[in-house]
Every structure is written in structure tokens, then in C-alpha cells.
């Protein structure tokens, strides 16, 4: 017994050391095998509060599982996002690694070099990104400025016409093929006695009315800047289109539409007050949701009509993802990994299946799962085929121009001035910005 015991004691250290070494080696190998390239990295995104923002939150665990990086999504409204991110860029405070960039901020981002120029990365990883699968208009307007990538597309929106199938059918009308038809039908379907109105759009002073009018202006042949990028707010075509917009408000819109922003406009349509509404495709899925909509099954989506004789061109908008130029190289690389991941075919489909509403890949337009959920995808595809992402000028001076138009158009709708007077005044102010 004593011998056996002593032999065990003698053998113990070697055995134990060998075993321990084996275990450590095993653990190290296992831990190496489990380690992810971005372990310990946290990426902070400043995100617009839109259809995609909560989807980003939902996708964060999957990104962590795949890469090891934590994703912190800070969701804020449009004004706060602009203010906070600009302050972050100017102050070099590195608060955000990634920023959702509205299409119209591209000029300011490029001029001030707020974001990392992604051109080389996009060229290098073109195959992985499957660029051919992304609509050219989306790549250009949601990512590029002057040929360089200031951001990469995240969620593209198509400007479409939502209409009430039941009302049109009852009146024996087909969806409008031209803007002239739209105006005529809107007036025809307007019946204030029944609280049924022909049309609804944003009327609220500021970005809301400016952006909606710019959509109509584009389809009526107007343009905010000349071909060489100079302001042309009071062009003949713009004055005419503003008169049409005013006419629609006076003769076919709900009385309170002059104070509607996007939320008010959508709510009024979902409540069944209006027959026609131009809108970003991101809101279209909500018309079929009985929890928020009174018009389930009664809504059709069509391409937004243009004026008679005009070459079709439809409004494209949405959000890109930009990498803060102030963050260090390793963070930039991690952020680029996220961009590639979220825009990849597989994840971007998931992104839209979860309700982000930002379709941008050609393959998404024919995907059976997505089509089963969103039957209006062919309309979005056609919009992108003839898309125009420049109808809101993506120049550094855009915020001020939008503000000038926001006041001018609102004052016309309020009856305080005429389209010509209002746009002349806005043009004078706009010229000072250049």
C-alpha cells in the first residue's frame, strides 16, 4: 500500500503537468477557434428614427455572433440626428462610428470630409458587395458625391403614388397616368361633406412642405438648381408647379393639411380621409396593417405620375451609412465590416423581412419571400429603373435652400403670397448662399 502510494506520489507531478498542459493547450485552441475578428469592439451608430432603426437593433445580436462586435444603435429624430452628428464631426469627439446619412446631406459630408472616403474599399470589395445587384441610381445617390463614396447605401426609398382602389373604382376611374390626371381625379374625388378628400400632402412650414413640394415639382418638370448647380428656385416651371400644388391644397386636401408633416399626412391617409397621396415606399406596408389602418385592402401603389409628355423619372431617396472620419483606423475597418455585412444579399433581405422598408437590391424585387410580404415591389423596381435622386439638390447649401422653400411654399398655401412672389423672394435669399 505504502509502495503503491509512494509510486503514485512519485508519478503525480509529471502526470498532472502533462494533463494541465494538455488542458491549457486545448482551451487555448478552443478559445482561439471561438475568438472572433472583432471581439471587444463596440460600434456606435447614430440612426435616424425610421423603419430600419429598430431592425438594426434586432440584427445586432446576429452581427455579434458572426463578428464578435457589439452594435450600439442610438435612435433619434431627424433634427436631433443632424445636430448631434454635425456637432460630433465638428468637435472631433468620435461619439459615433457610423452615421445614417440622408441622401441630401451628401454634399455637406463631401465638402467637409466628415466621413471616410469609401471609394477604394468599395472598389476592392466590389465582388463581395455584389454591386451589380444594387440599382445604379441607389449607388449613386445614396452613396456617392462627385464620384466618390461618402457613404454606402443602407435603405433606399422610392417615391410612389398610394391611391384608394375602392374610391377610384366607384367613380369609374383608373389610376392616374399623368400628373394632369392626378389633379383632375383628386378634384373629382373630393367630397368635403362626407369628409372625403381627393389628395393629401405635407403643408407644414419647414422641411415637410419643402420636401413634398419638391417631389411634385420634379414630376411637373421643375428643378431647384440649374444644370451647373446654381439656384433656380423661381424658374417658370417651378412657379407653375407651385400653383398646381396650391390648387390641390385649396380644392382637394383636408382642411388641416397645411399643418401636416409626414406623420400627419400618413395618418390622414391611413384613416381613409384622402384618395391620393405620394409617399416614400417605406410607409406602404402600414396601409395593410389593421392595427393602424382603416383602409386595409383598399390601397393600390403605383409609380408616381409625371406631366404629360415628360420622360418618366421618379423620386428616389433614403439613407446611406457613413463612417465617421475622426475614428481610428481599426474602428473604420470594423465599421466597414458592418456595412458589408448589413448590405449583403442575405442580411439585407432579412433586414427588409423584418420591416425596414429600404429595398435596394435587384434580387429583392423578385425574391418570393419578400414579394409575398410586399406586393408593391415591382412598382419600386420600376421607380428605381427610372429613378432620380437629384430632385432635391444634394449640395452643401441644401439645408438652407430647403428652409427657404419650406417658408415660401407654406406662405403660398396659407394664402399670404403668390407663387411668383414667394419663389422670387426665396431665390434672392438663395443666391446669397453661393
Amino acid at each position, binding site marked *: 500500500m505504502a509502495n503503491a502510494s509512494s509510486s503514485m506520489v512519485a508519478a503525480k507531478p509529471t502526470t498532472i503537468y502533462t494533463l494541465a498542459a494538455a488542458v491549457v493547450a486545448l482551451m487555448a485552441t478552443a478559445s482561439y477557434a471561438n475568438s472572433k475578428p472583432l471581439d471587444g469592439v463596440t460600434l456606435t451608430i447614430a440612426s435616424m428614427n425610421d423603419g430600419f432603426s429598430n431592425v438594426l437593433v434586432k440584427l445586432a445580436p446576429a452581427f455579434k455572433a458572426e463578428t464578435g462586435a457589439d452594435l450600439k444603435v442610438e435612435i433619434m429624430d431627424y*433634427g436631433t440626428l*443632424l*445636430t448631434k452628428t*454635425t456637432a460630433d464631426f*465638428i468637435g472631433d469627439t468620435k461619439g459615433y462610428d457610423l452615421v445614417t446619412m440622408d441622401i441630401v446631406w451628401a454634399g*455637406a459630408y463631401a*465638402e*467637409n470630409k466628415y466621413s471616410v472616403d469609401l471609394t477604394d474599399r468599395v472598389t476592392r470589395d466590389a465582388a463581395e458587395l455584389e454591386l451589380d445587384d444594387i440599382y445604379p441610381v441607389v449607388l449613386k445617390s445614396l452613396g456617392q458625391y462627385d464620384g466618390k463614396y461618402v457613404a454606402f447605401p443602407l435603405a433606399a426609398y422610392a417615391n410612389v403614388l398610394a391611391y384608394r382602389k375602392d374610391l377610384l373604382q366607384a367613380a369609374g376611374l383608373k389610376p392616374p397616368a399623368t400628373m394632369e390626371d392626378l389633379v383632375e381625379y383628386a378634384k373629382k374625388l373630393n367630397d368635403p361633406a362626407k369628409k372625403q378628400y381627393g389628395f393629401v400632402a405635407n403643408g*407644414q*412650414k*419647414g422641411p415637410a412642405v419643402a420636401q413634398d413640394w419638391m417631389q411634385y415639382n420634379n414630376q411637373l418638370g421643375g428643378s431647384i438648381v440649374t444644370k451647373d448647380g446654381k439656384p433656380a428656385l423661381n424658374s417658370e416651371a417651378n412657379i407653375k408647379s407651385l400653383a398646381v400644388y396650391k390648387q390641390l391644397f385649396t380644392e382637394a386636401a*383636408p*382642411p*388641416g*393639411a*397645411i*399643418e401636416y408633416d409626414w406623420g400627419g399626412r400618413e395618418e*390622414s391617409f391611413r384613416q381613409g*380621409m384622402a384618395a391620393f397621396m405620394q409617399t416614400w415606399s417605406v410607409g406602404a406596408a402600414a396601409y395593410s396593417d389593421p392595427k393602424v389602418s382603416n383602409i386595409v385592402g383598399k390601397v393600390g401603389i403605383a409609380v408616381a405620375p409625371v406631366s404629360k409628355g415628360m420622360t418618366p423619372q421618379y423620386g428616389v431617396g433614403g439613407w446611406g451609412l457613413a463612417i465617421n472620419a475622426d475614428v481610428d483606423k481599426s474602428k473604420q475597418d470594423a465599421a466597414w465590416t458592418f456595412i458589408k455585412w448589413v448590405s449583403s444579399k442575405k442580411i439585407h433581405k432579412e433586414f427588409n423581412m423584418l420591416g425596414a422598408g429600404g429595398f435596394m437590391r435587384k434580387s429583392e424585387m423578385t425574391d418570393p419571400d419578400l414579394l409575398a410580404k410586399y406586393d408593391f415591389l415591382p412598382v419600386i423596381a420600376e421607380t428605381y429603373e427610372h429613378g432620380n435622386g437629384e430632385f432635391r439638390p444634394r449640395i*452643401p447649401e441644401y*439645408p*438652407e435652400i430647403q*428652409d427657404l422653400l419650406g*417658408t415660401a411654399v*407654406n*406662405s403660398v*398655401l*396659407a*394664402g*399670404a*403670397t403668390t407663387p411668383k412672389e414667394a419663389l422670387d423672394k426665396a431665390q434672392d435669399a438663395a443666391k446669397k448662399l453661393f
Partner: protein
Amino acid sequence: MHYSFANRRRLFLFLMATPAVLYVAAVGLWPLAQGIGYSFYKYNLLRPARTQFVGLQNYIDIFSDATTRKAILNTFQFTFFSVGLQLVLGFALALLLWRDSRFNRAVLAFLLIPSTITPLVVGLIFKAMLGADYGIIGYFLSDAGIGPRSGLLTDAGTALWMLILIDCWEWTPLMTLILLAGLKSLPGDVLEAGQVDGATAWQRFRLLILPLMLPSVFLALTLRTMDAFRVFDSVFVTTGGGPDDATNTLMLLGVKEGLQFFNVGFASAVGNVTLLFIALIATMLLLVVRRADVRINGK
């Protein structure tokens, strides 16, 4: 080296005051000086390369531009009518609540509720109520053809007046509270003497209460005027300065220029002009009240 007691005391007091002086200098004077400095520049944070010294140009623009002039006029109109109405209503309510009873104390507590709500929320509540399509008030008004069809907050003729009424709804209780505190501290013997001498209620109000209340009135007017002149939240959420420029105010303009367009130079000039106006109004109020005091009380 020997310091006298007086010198040591002076040094001690100086040292005691230093933190406060430093604090005021850091958070008050330094930013103010910076703001005055910036206002002489065309300085936009989004276009820092284009910064240039423009002297008084920002101030000239404020007074020559139609939009800014309208904002100044609106701010004065808003301040004058809302504070004026609040003074009259507040005084009337304070007189009604003067007698110390359980009922009056309960009424006062309820009366103060509007002033405890943040102005932004008040704006949103009124916007929701006055909307022509869904508002609990606006819908019926629009339906009955009373007021503008598009709602009281959307018409250039009514929007500013509605904002004045909203401000009165919210801040009259505060005015009442300040004036009530003044009434409660009036010397009882003087008022009783007036009553014994056979003065009518109106005579007592005009000849006794009003003169004695002048310091409280001055305090209430100054506080509310300074506040009303800086009105922002309720206007921002209800009308955004519209329709057209009908409800644009100086603070709205300053915030838009500074935080939306990052136009630091012009926004600083707007801020300085606002500050100057407030200082002038406060001085004017002081002079008016002092003159009234001399006229009425002879001192």
C-alpha cells in the same frame, strides 16, 4: 509681515467670493464675450473655411431683412399682449384668492397645474386640440365655419393670437402666485384704516392696494416679460414659426440659425439683440414702476 484685521478680513471675503466670481466668469461672462465676438463674423461651422470678419453686417442684416424684422415685431407683440393679459387676469385671480380659506388654498393648488407642465407639452396638447381634422376643438370649429377652415393655428390672422392665449393659459397662474404673495404681505393696518375711513372697494384698490403692490407687480412683470420674450418651445411645436412668418420669433430664428444651419455668427447676433431688448425692457419697467412709485407714494 503683519496684516491688520481689516486687511485679513478683506482677503478672507475676497477668497470666499472667488469661487462664485470664477463660476460667473466661466459660465456667464466668457460665453457672452465669445458670443459678442462671433457676432462680428460670417462664421458657419459647416463651412469654416469661408469664415470672414464682417463687422456689424450681421446686425445690419437683422434689422434690414423682412423675415427678421417680422420676428422682432412678433416677439414684441407676443410679449406685450401675453404679459399684459396675464397681469390683468393674474391680479384679478389673486384678489379673488386673497382671503385665506381652505377653499382658496385648494383652488390655488389646482390653478397652478398648467404652470407645472413643460411648455413643449402644452404646445403639443393645444396643437392636438386645435387641429381642424382631428382636434377636439378644431374639428367642431372648422365644421361650424367658425374661424379659419384650416384651423386657428394655421391662419396668419389668428395663429399668433392663439399662441398668446396658450401662453396665458399656462403662465397666468404663476402671475397669480407672485401677486398673491404680494397681497398677503400688505400691511393690514393700512387697509383697515382705509376701510374705517369709508373708502370704497375701488378706492381701496386704486389708492392703497395698487401703490403698495408696485414692487410685486414689477417683479411679476419683469420675470414674465423676460420669459415671454424668449418664447420658443410652444411656438416650435405648434406652428414652427408659420404660416409664412406669422409666428416667427427671435428665439426661433436664433435656434434655427444656430443649431440647424450652424450659422454661429448670425445666431450670436440674434442672441445679443434679444439680450439687449430684454435688458432695455427690464430697465424701462424699472423706470416706469419707480416713477409710478414716486407719483403715488411721493418718494
